[in-house]
């Protein structure tokens, strides 16, 4: 397959003479969170010359939270997203803990936050696997388009669809119990949480947790089976070899709420470990490209070309040495046996890794529900106010960084958010190019081929609405056209904000 590629993947970012090429746009991308599109430029023989993933929406949170009181942050920034608001809520919560000088929460506060986080990880992963991706995986990438969706899933596999819906519902109920609402509630406050659980809330969740674990095992088995069924193809599809970054516990165990940054190089060697995430800006830089609203992060010491990396379930399961819950750990061992020496780099293995995490979260929720601290009354601590707070968490889609500075009055003066999906920007683009190079090699173009591109993007579970923040650096092209389409005037704003014609 690789030998047939007419061009190298790197060449496909920008074609030499784009004006002479035929353009195909996949717009909007379906079954992903947020709005994005893919543009493909093809020559007369239907050979791919350029492929790009564009994010076409813009949010601007970093700007409009400036001037707001710091304690509003967890509630304001969670509005970035309706799927994983808890991640933003908790990353901001961790940042404002530092602003009020609290390094370590009370056991009750940390466990309530963790419970909330595992609940949202479970619901988000269930949503992605069952609702968004399973139609591709179960029916085939080229299958009948009218069937390739959640309704088709309900018709063909009603029990499976029901499990997906109910797994998600359980996660949402965990969030409701901790935050007061399923979406956009309140929980994290500076130095703690605003409520613990009472025994009736705990009992309510406990009655379903064993069923949830059983379904989680089934989901993991299904993801494993689907990958192993066509191992060779699945390993090569959209495959790119990258470094991988995630939080880890100090002993190397999988960690989703709090830990040190670990980066494993694409060859499997350890590049960084136990890095205090508050030093993230010494290690991570962001590149801006004129054709996307989403920035391109990279590891500073390697530079933009060699320093890109992946985050999310694939990175986390590859990066950790162990998982501290038994069922998920067994799943991890089997997963890693695909490549014991190096890293499992297959893009489609994201789905498998994601289901290992789903099961891990269910097991963690079970452990926490047995923990009396969850019903505690010691909710909040305080300390000396500080000027800067940095909160990092492993969101469903990967490492999420919130960095805030406040003035003497407690109002936000600067904010920087590096959202999980943004880390994967370069990787998603390269996966798109890999698929395009493999498929668009002169044959007639079909809908199924375009879906292959989307399947590659979907594996990353991108949240495009969360990921667009480059305010003031947005490149823009304005064209004035006559009714016949002839361009009369063209104004270009580049990434530095400079205008030219």
């Amino acid at each position: 397959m690789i030998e047939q590629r007419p061009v190298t993947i790197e060449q496909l970012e920008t074609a030499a003479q784009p004006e002479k090429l035929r353009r195909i746009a996949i717009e909007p991308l379906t079954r992903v969170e947020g709005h994005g599109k893919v543009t493909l430029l093809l020559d007369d023989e239907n050979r791919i010359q350029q492929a790009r993933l564009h994010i076409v929406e813009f949010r601007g949170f970093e700007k409009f939270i400036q001037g707001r009181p710091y304690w509003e942050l967890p509630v304001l920034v969670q509005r970035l997203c309706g799927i994983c608001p808890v991640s933003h809520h908790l990353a901001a919560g961790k940042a404002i803990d530092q602003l009020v000088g609290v390094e370590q929460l009370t056991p009750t506060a940390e466990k309530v936050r963790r419970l909330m986080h595992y609940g949202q990880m479970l619901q988000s992963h269930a949503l992605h696997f069952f609702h968004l991706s399973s139609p591709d995986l179960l029916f085939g990438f080229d299958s009948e388009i009218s069937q390739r969706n959640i309704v088709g899933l309900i018709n063909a596999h009603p029990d499976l669809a029901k499990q997906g819906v109910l797994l998600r519902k359980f996660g949402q109920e965990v969030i409701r119990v901790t935050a007061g609402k399923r979406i956009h509630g309140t929980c994290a406050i500076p130095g703690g949480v605003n409520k613990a659980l009472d025994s009736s809330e705990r009992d309510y969740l406990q009655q379903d947790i064993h069923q949830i674990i059983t379904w989680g095992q089934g989901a993991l088995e299904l993801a494993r089976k689907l990958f192993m069924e066509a191992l060779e193809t699945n390993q090569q599809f959209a495959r790119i070899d990258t470094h991988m970054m995630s939080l880890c516990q100090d002993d190397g165990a999988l960690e989703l709420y709090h830990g040190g940054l670990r980066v494993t190089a694409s060859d499997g060697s350890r590049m960084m470990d136990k890095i205090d995430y508050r030093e993230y800006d010494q290690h991570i830089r962001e590149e801006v490209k004129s054709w996307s609203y989403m920035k391109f992060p990279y590891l500073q010491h390697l530079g933009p070309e060699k320093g890109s990396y992946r985050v999310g379930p694939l990175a986390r399961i590859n990066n950790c040495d162990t998982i501290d819950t038994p069922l998920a750990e067994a799943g991890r061992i089997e997963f890693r046996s695909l490549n014991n020496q190096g890293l499992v780099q297959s893009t489609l293995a994201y789905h498998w890794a994601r289901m290992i995490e789903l099961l891990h979260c269910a097991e963690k929720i079970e452990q926490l529900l047995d923990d009396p601290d969850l019903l505690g009354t010691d909710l909040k601590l305080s300390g000396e106010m500080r000027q800067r707070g940095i909160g990092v968490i492993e969101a469903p889609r990967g490492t999420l960084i919130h960095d805030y500075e406040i003035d003497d009055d407690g109002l936000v003066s600067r904010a920087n958010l590096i959202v999980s999906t943004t880390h994967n920007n370069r990787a998603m683009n390269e996966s798109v190019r890999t698929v395009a190079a493999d498929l668009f090699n002169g044959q007639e173009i079909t809908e199924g081929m375009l879906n292959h591109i989307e399947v590659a993007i979907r594996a990353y579970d991108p949240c495009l609405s969360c990921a667009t923040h480059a305010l003031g650096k947005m490149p823009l092209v304005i064209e004035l056209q006559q009714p016949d389409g002839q361009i009369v005037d063209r104004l270009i704003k580049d990434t530095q904000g400079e205008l030219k014609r």
Partner: protein
Amino acid sequence: MTNSFEIDGITVPFSNGQTIMDAALTAGIYIPHLCHNPEFKPHGSCRLCTVLINGRSVAACTTPAGEGIVVENETHELVTQRRLLLKLLFVEGNHTCPGCEKSGACQLQAVAYHCGMLAPEFVHFYPKRSIDASHPDTIIDFNRCILCELCVRASRDSDKKAVFNISGRGIQAHLTIDSPSGKLADSAFNSSDKAARVCPVGAILPKHKGYNIPIGQRLYDQAPISQVGDVAKHQEVADE
């Protein structure tokens, strides 16, 4: 023999000197209001408590109760009119309930729910207003001020300080602070002042405490404002 009058067919007793609002509050009948607080001289500016007496519109908070009068309160026309007033209030300032720490315990929001306002209707003004966070204990978010003058009255009549005032006219009317810099920190204001606990909305708030009360336990989470009453009535208790 006590004096009495009727509100929506219910007989309401009153004593001499009571307004329609006073008598209604005593009898447990809710007439929507924002600028009224029984501890202060009635102001009659928000017009939300407008009721009909013999077809004539009057503010319940400033009109004396009278023997045998027939008051219309929760009629379709009056509720529609109140909803209109509320919709205008919502677009005049920057009232973003989803992110506001006062949400669930805000009188403006609670009255809007009571009057059946479920969505904005008019184009938002999005006025550019500032935040005064200079004071160590209290923050003022001018975005949410509805010019009810309760803080003005409380500071002047109760605290004897006159820290707050309303300046400007019409759409230019705005809350001002009496201090050399115009900032709260340079004024005579103290967080234990009465003026710190009368704001019906999220304009005058204690610092560092937002969202401390979980969803489900906020003032209007369990019962509507017609049963719970005003924010200020509960503020003193909450702060103790």
